[in-house]
């Protein structure tokens, strides 16, 4: 909401400078986004009168003028030709600063001295569209009389300041100059003057010429109409044009200017219809019919539907209610009789309609904000007054007012003790009451209740009153205390601690933390080669996405990670390792009947200087930190379309599948434009944390010596070392302390289809020195087990 300080001062007395004013308004709840001092950089422009215009001796297109600037007459050479002797013009004196850093100096033009410049509106930094009387090229001719030599800036509103307020949605009343004026008066505790409204009505009866029928009363709580006769469409006077210009509205003609003026001043949008175009002068407010068409004022044909509210004549639609009027009933230059509308419409309906037909107007943005239906009557009377005042027409007697609004002043009880208790203050009742009165609340001090004006529908309960007290008392004056009450222990849960630990371990393993989007495109399913019936394709879909790329909630973190790797690859980053702890969203059924399962996945992705075992090592480091490494197993039997078929594994913890690891399938790498091997692992955090512990059990450090044995065996190629190890562990019982694979060999001297595998074993007993007999017996058991279960033969 842009507010002109000059305009605002018509209603409220503001003594302080604009910055201080802006600060005070911000602190009382009307946050100031910006303050623009108009003409701040423009200096030394005065009113001058052209005394003489003669041709330049040496230039066809230039003239030499003598201009009276009050205390002297100066000579100015100019190329402009629209001024006449006797005209008043804005004159920039030597030393003047104009728009865009232009500086005026004494000088010569084609040998003739020129000691200043006559200005156009552009040179004063103004928008020529806002000055219908400004010539397209040339000097602005000032209308009216001003002392010669006086500052020209006020004539152009260049002494004004424009304050931009951020208005919160609970205060639609502040989307008007009067609303801001009211807040200003309450804030600086000063007087506030409503404009005095009064006008004369001419003979006639509105009911003889017009009628209004509201059918859709739910969407149109109030519709007020007045009729203007003897309408004379012409430019509005300068003062009204100045007001509109000051808030960025282009003056058009007196009638349009009046409706705009009232919209800014009162916050009530209005519309004018050519009464002669309305059959029987009848207006019907109803829902549109499906596929009903109309031409709006902007010349566009609009197709409507039955959710939209329209203003219609007997035959056709003449306006989309609260959004834009129609071409057919537009006010023309020769219109003699017009019907003025000030209505109130359902905000949600206006918002939906405006969105559906893709048309947001000043009117629709106002109507979207719950305007007070009671403003409609005041606004239309103000418009009538202005019409009479500036000679736009005469007001016909009578008013049509279809009022279905039930807006009444809210009655709210206050309890001084409660309010102080909520705020932590000790403000007296007298002071609170004075704040209420400043806000135009009617206070009943006996009943301890207030009546809020109808434009303050936001005042509903005591907490609302507490805020009014607090903001006028000053939030900055409220005490600052630390809550007493029952103490609570601040802490992280076990899960939160373990997530933090996982992050720490990932970073210790030189992975950088990534963050990827929760939504993705359904196209990624094909990129990942997912089967048509893959469960990962069952995703929560967004009904109104920003585009396909953001249209489904991810069921896997793999795409996000691969995309992150791909981004890095495209930027030629070498050796990239990333991790993310992120959420996936797994619906139990589509459409959703209950909330989907949201689970946390640890995802690792890497390319460049890495292989499967580096990634496996990172996971093992993590499991070690989580005290569950002993429970880990790696099982290649897993079907995942996006992994290399020979380089993938289920990750098992305590015989439960908690995730997977593998090399990314080359087809998938191609799809992501990664031309290097890449590895990913995905681990379910809940499952992992379920096996984790931060408890440690102490056992005494060994007191008896270890005995070492090596064993080498021949097994079929496809036997997993993991299986061999499992057999060795199982067969050796408690005394196996360590087992280390030190050789796997295929090739010369080994039969095709077989491999040689060698382990260094270390045995130790906690309570005695191991005897040769015990070791041999254990070794025998191990060899027998390997032979029976895996067909291994001992290599000698």
């Amino acid at each position, binding site marked *: 909401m842009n507010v002109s300080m000059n305009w605002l001062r018509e209603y409220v007395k503001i003594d302080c400078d604009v910055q201080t004013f802006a600060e005070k308004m911000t602190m009382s709840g009307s946050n100031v986004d910006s303050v623009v001092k108009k003409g701040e950089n423009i200096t030394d422009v005065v009113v001058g009168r052209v005394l003489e215009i003669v041709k330049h001796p040496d230039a066809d297109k230039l003239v030499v003028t003598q201009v009276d600037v009050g205390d002297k007459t100066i000579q100015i050479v100019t190329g402009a030709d629209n001024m006449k002797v006797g005209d008043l013009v804005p004159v920039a004196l030597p030393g003047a600063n104009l728009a865009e850093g232009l500086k005026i100096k004494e000088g010569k033009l084609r040998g003739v001295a020129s000691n200043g410049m006559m200005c156009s509106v552009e040179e004063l930094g103004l928008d020529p569209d806002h000055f219908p009387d400004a010539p397209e090229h040339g000097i602005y001719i000032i209308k009216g009389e001003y002392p010669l030599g006086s500052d020209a800036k006020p004539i152009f509103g260049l002494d004004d300041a424009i304050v931009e307020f951020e208005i919160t949605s*609970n205060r639609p009343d502040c989307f008007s100059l009067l609303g801001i004026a009211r807040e200003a008066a309450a804030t600086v505790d000063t007087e506030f003057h409503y404009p005095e409204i009064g006008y004369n009505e001419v003979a006639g009866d509105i009911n003889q010429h017009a009628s209004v029928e509201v059918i859709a009363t739910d969407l149109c709580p109030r519709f007020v109409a007045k009729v203007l006769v003897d309408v004379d469409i012409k430019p509005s006077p300068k003062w009204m044009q100045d007001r509109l210009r000051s808030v960025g509205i282009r003056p058009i003609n007196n009638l349009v200017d009046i409706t705009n003026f009232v919209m800014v001043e009162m916050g009530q949008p209005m519309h004018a219809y050519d009464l002669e175009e309305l059959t029987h002068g009848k207006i019907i407010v109803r829902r549109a019919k499906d596929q009903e068409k109309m031409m709006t004022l902007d010349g566009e044909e609009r197709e409507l539907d039955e959710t939209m509210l329209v203003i219609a004549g007997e035959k056709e639609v003449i306006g989309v209610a609260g959004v834009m009027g129609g071409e057919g009933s537009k006010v023309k230059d020769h219109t003699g009789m017009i019907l003025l509308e000030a209505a109130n419409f359902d905000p949600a309906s206006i918002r939906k309609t405006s969105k559906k037909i893709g048309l947001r107007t000043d009117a629709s943005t106002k109507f979207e904000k719950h305007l007070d239906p009671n403003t409609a009557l005041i606004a239309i009377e103000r418009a009538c007054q202005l019409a009479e005042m500036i000679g736009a027409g005469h007001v016909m007697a009578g008013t049509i007012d279809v009022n279905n609004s039930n807006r009444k002043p809210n009655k709210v009880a206050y309890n001084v003790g409660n309010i102080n*208790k909520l705020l932590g203050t000790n403000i007296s009742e007298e002071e609170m009451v004075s704040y209420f009165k400043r806000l135009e609340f009617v206070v009943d001090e006996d009943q301890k209740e207030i009546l809020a004006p109808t434009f303050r529908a936001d005042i509903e309960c005591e907490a609302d009153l507490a805020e009014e007290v607090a903001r006028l008392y000053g939030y900055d004056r409220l005490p*600052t205390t630390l809550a007493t009450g029952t103490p609570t222990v601040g802490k992280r849960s076990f899960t939160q601690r373990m997530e933090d630990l996982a992050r720490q371990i990932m970073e210790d393993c030189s992975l950088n933390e990534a963050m990827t989007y929760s*939504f993705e495109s359904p196209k990624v399913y094909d990129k990942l080669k997912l089967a048509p019936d893959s469960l990962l394709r069952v995703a929560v879909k967004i009904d109104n996405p920003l585009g396909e790329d953001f249209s489904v909630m991810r069921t896997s973190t793999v795409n996000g990670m691969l995309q992150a790797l791909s981004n890095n690859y495209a930027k030629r980053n070498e050796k990239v390792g990333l991790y993310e702890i992120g959420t996936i969203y797994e619906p139990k059924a589509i459409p959703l009947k209950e909330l989907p399962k949201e689970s946390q996945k640890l995802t690792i992705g890497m390319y460049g200087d890495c292989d499967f075992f580096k990634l496996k090592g990172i996971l093992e480091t993590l499991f070690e930190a989580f005290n569950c490494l002993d429970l880990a197993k790696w099982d290649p039997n897993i079907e995942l379309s996006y992994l290399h078929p020979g380089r993938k594994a289920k990750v098992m913890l305590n015989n439960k599948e908690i995730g997977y690891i593998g090399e990314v399938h080359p087809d998938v790498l191609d799809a992501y434009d990664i031309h290097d091997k890449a590895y990913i692992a995905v681990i379910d955090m809940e499952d992992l944390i379920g096996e984790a512990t931060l408890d440690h059990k102490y056992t005494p450090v060994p007191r008896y010596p270890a005995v070492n044995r090596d064993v080498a065996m021949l097994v079929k190629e496809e036997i997993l070392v993991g299986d061999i190890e499992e057999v060795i562990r199982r067969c050796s019982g408690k005394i196996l302390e360590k087992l280390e694979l030190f050789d796997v060999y295929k090739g010369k001297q080994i039969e095709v289809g077989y491999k040689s595998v060698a382990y260094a074993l270390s045995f130790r007993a906690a309570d005695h020195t191991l005897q040769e007999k015990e070791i041999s017996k254990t070794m025998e058991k191990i060899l027998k087990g390997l032979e029976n279960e895996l067909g291994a033969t001992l290599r000698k």
Partner: protein
Amino acid sequence: MKEQLEAIKIKVVKNLHNIADLKALDEVRVNILGKKGELTSILKGMKDVAPEDRPTIGALVNEVRTDIEAAIENAKNNLASKVREQQLKEEVIDVTMPSNKKTLGHRHPMHIVLEDLKNIFIGMGYQIAKGPEIEEDYYNFKALNIPEDHPARDEQDTFYIDKNFVLRTSTSPTQVHVMEHQKPPIRVIAPGRVYRSDEVDATHSPMFHQVEGLVIDEHITMADLKGALAEFVKELYGDDAKVRFRPHYFPFTEPSAEVDVSCFKCGGTGCNICKGSGWIEILGCGMVHPKVLEMSGIDPTKYSGFAFGMGLERITMLRYGIEDLRLFYENDIRFLKQF
């Protein structure tokens, strides 16, 4: 014999001077003290010594032997330290050569800041709560006192799944979940992802992060809200940071406020970061609306409380001077490794 002994001793000392290695030293020892060594041979001649002289000569022989042994031991030590010295000389390294430092990974800047926030609030007695990102319409709107036709419900802002489910538009629904499941006293923060239908640009993202805070107890006042957040700002931005509370509007708090912190770039005089105002808005807050308390099953006549919420992206961008929010989700390691 006495002369012989003295001569051996002198010879040994002399020989030991020129000894270069342990092998030569051992030769000297064998030559003198070995079974066929010179001193041993002399001892063999003891039988020819007059009996009365034997004790004297015997003592002398022992003395010479002890001296020689000591001299050899001494020479051995000297030799060893020379060898060590030589070895150390040969082992000189260029300490400016590169190390095999372990490369550490780096945490995402938003999580660094979140970690700081968590630590501050945990220190103030808060716990950490979590709520669903795909949320029931009720929790996202109605339970937060956002009526049916409120602009916040407009499609422009909210991603809808269907008429019952939405992507939460703020972390505030977590307030309601916490209040429904926990009896006062409540002190929690709830960080998480939130979604709004904003096109991606330097300052907008359809997905971003918020940190919600909620305190419910008997006798909680707005002054307590100011105290808690003033403390938080001091912890986050240092003792010199000034805080400003100004009235604002949120449907689920009343009274409501926005909190500004004095611009840490210009200190309050006005610059491009604070758009000339000297203040930077960092969070929204207020006293939990009695209707919200009531709908969440908490008696508003007995309990009161405050809530606050802040944007993690914004706070992180301000802390590090990051100008484009898109960097947070591109995961370029040249960006990530700076933190």
